[in-house]
């Protein structure tokens, strides 16, 4: 952590040198520091949203309970599995990039991207069904939260897909793809995953 730490100095000076020269250091912070700044801040913002939801729900439990019963847990579980799988693929892609197996890495990346797009499709289908079926007016407080949380999350997923597409360009279009770029993208993607798990638990499971 401190500036006198020889491992940290070695890492910093080895920035442009091949990765192999770095020990499999446990202190290595994957990806750019600014992405971690973003992740922590974004999680903080979402904690504010969640705190607000929990507070509201505790004050008027009835509309929330009724609304939650109208959600399909099956679709929620399906989307959770899809997103966790995509996170696994993205993690495997980072590993392959570190090992300089670029073809394997891009294959995993494509699979991760496909799962992310699948998540958005399922979510769109769920919204369509929900809007089509309608919901009683008494459950409105819950559904405002539902559409806002899932909507904000989908915006994050869309941004994540954009980042994964940029990573694809990095892997396929450059001679020496930057490992740091792959790590930064994966950091963001895992945050999207983490956010979904929290939203899934809050909206679909906690009753």
């Amino acid at each position, binding site marked *: 952590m401190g500036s006198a730490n020889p491992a940290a100095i070695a890492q910093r000076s080895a920035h442009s040198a091949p990765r192999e020269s770095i020990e499999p250091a446990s202190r290595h912070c994957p990806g750019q520091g600014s992405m971690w700044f973003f992740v922590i801040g974004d999680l903080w913002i979402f904690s504010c949203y969640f705190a607000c939801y929990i507070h509201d729900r505790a004050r008027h439990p009835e509309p929330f309970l009724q609304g939650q019963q109208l959600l399909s847990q099956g679709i929620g579980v399906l989307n959770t599995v899809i997103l966790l799988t995509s996170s696994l693929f993205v993690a495997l892609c980072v590993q392959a990039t570190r090992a300089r197996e670029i073809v394997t890495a891009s294959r995993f990346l494509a699979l991760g991207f496909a799962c992310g797009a699948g998540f958005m499709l399922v979510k769109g289908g769920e919204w369509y069904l929900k809007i089509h079926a309608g919901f009683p007016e008494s459950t409105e407080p819950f559904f405002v939260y539902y559409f806002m949380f899932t909507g904000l999350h989908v*915006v994050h997923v869309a941004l994540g897909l954009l980042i994964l597409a940029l990573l694809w360009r990095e892997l396929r279009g450059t001679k020496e793809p930057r490992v740091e770029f792959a790590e930064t993208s994966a950091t963001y993607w895992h945050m999207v995953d983490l956010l979904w798990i929290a939203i899934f638990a809050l909206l679909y499971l906690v009753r």
Partner: protein
Amino acid sequence: MSESAWALGAAAPHSATVEARRGRSPKLDQWICFGSIPFFYTLFGLIFVLLARIMPPPSPTASIADVLAYMQAPNLALGVALLSLTLGLASLSSGVIVVQMKRMEGVSPALPYAYLAALAVAGVPGCLFPGLVFALGCYRPGYTPQIQQMLYDLGFLSFVGSLGVFVIQYLVFAIAIFLDRRTIFPKWLGYLTIWALVTELVAVPIWITRTGPFAWDGLLSFYLGTIIFVGWEFCMCVCLYRAIKNQPLEELIGRGTAHG
């Protein structure tokens, strides 16, 4: 400091020495525009918070009597009149931001123009229009309470509901920062811009809810977005200051001669 040191240097191009001898900084225009930002926001705060009391917004469920009291407050019209005089100042800050954005490398020139246009579009429903609507309410004392209430609703829906219009401005700015290879603005400012974007999206449900955190005076749709906006604006100022300060004078001299 670095400018004067550079101007004294032997290798300084001729035109820059002339500029320095005249006692003028080649960045004077940018510094003037930059100086308008704290001035504008001080006035903005004074008008919106103290005079017109648009911020923090009163409740959408306020009684008719409260709505009338709000719409006929003596300082409201004064605040709006001042607002119409000062809003144009915002164009100075946009100008200097675009100057810095155009220095970016690997960024399409369409982005700074899009930024400028998006901000100009958003400033109308987000700033001027609500003021005009409120001023209209207190213009003629004969308006019925229902009309007053409608103007009150329209003013606040326009003020808070237009936050979504700023989303494109933030998006364009964030993309430009991420693409920029010269790091005119630090990458973390790009991420901060994404937060601002996300928190402004939350203002969308104000059109359908009148109570709770998603109403126009709600914790999530108004307060969280405003807190992040204030933080963003502050960081933006700091980064803009650094960007102007670190801009090499050679760039400006070149530009000066190119334009005569």
